[in-house]
């Protein structure tokens, strides 16, 4: 029934908006703190909002502030940003597989809004991802990020400490909320997530590589190992061990 109804662009946009609400909530305390820290690092409100508008990548924006405070050069800051954000390439490639029939120009535009959070929501969504959905999802995430960066700078204070800390769990809770439904129906998903978590923990705790690289490496290791296992299982199916 619903599958046969061609959904129009605006209803897809609305679905994206709804799916983005938890990102909007999750960005609120982080963006607010970013604005505050940007102020104490000497950035003007225009520069702060501009950075959130143009870069739109939480971790690297935070890192750039601490590098500015250390007096690090512009080139090194840009290089670090590149390294921290290289993981989005992998996310883009994954989303591209899920969004086959959209116009290229739409994808080129909405790819600007790929973050860990928008990616996670879109990639765990059932079925294909449409441009309308992506634009909806990204608008709410982007607005929250940009507006609350500005407000954080403006009011120059963060939330009461207990609320600030408890809201810090928001994005992780969202990731868990996206992951668990698939874990319940697929053992493969459980293995993928556990391996990803274990590899990333080993790489991060032992300081083996920068965080941006650790996530990419852990993701790739887990995805490739599980895929190899899958291929072998399919190849030897019928020999006696499977099913």
């Amino acid at each position, binding site marked *: 029934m619903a599958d046969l109804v061609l959904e129009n662009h605006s209803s897809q946009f609305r679905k994206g908006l709804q799916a983005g609400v938890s990102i909007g909530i999750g960005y609120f305390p982080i963006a607010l703190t970013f604005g505050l820290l940007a102020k104490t690092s000497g950035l003007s409100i225009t520069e702060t909002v501009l950075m959130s508008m143009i870069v739109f990548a939480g971790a690297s924006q935070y890192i750039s502030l601490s590098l500015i405070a250390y007096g690090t050069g512009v080139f090194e800051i840009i290089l670090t940003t590149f390294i921290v954000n290289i993981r989005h390439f992998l996310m883009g490639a994954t989303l591209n597989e899920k969004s086959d029939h959209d116009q290229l120009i739409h994808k080129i535009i909405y790819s600007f809004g790929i973050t860990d959070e928008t990616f*996670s929501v879109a990639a765990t969504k059932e079925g294909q991802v449409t441009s309308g959905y992506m634009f909806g999802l990204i608008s709410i995430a982007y607005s929250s990020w940009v507006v609350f960066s500005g407000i954080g700078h403006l009011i120059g204070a963060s939330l009461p400490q207990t609320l600030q800390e408890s809201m810090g769990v928001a994005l992780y809770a969202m990731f868990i909320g996206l992951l668990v439904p698939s874990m319940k129906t697929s053992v493969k998903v459980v293995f993928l997530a556990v391996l990803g978590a274990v590899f990333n923990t080993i790489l991060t705790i032992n300081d083996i590589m920068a965080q941006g690289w650790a996530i990419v490496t852990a993701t790739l290791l887990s995805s490739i190992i599980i895929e190899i296992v899958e291929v072998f299982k399919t190849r030897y199916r019928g020999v006696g061990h499977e099913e």
Partner: protein
Amino acid sequence: MKSEIIWMIIGMGLVTYIPRMLPFLLFQGKELPPFLQGVLKNVPYATLGALIFPAIFFIQKDDIWYGVLGACAAFLVSFLGANVIVVVLSSIVVLTVYSYLM
């Protein structure tokens, strides 16, 4: 506005946007080898595992149990079938209550 900061922001924006956009340009209309397609289908779940752990344990720097509690609350509520927003809000509530009790 200091022009050095503006150039830094533009540079940061470029090096962030290019890796985001490039796969759509490179792989448009291309059929990737089946193995690679399989790997990319696995990426979301592997990424989620890596995004959650170990970072969730360190949301409160001096108290690892804070993060453990948040993670357990989120897993439990989500396992019971709640949607994502409910999972997010209940974890926040659980941790807020926990900080008031401590």
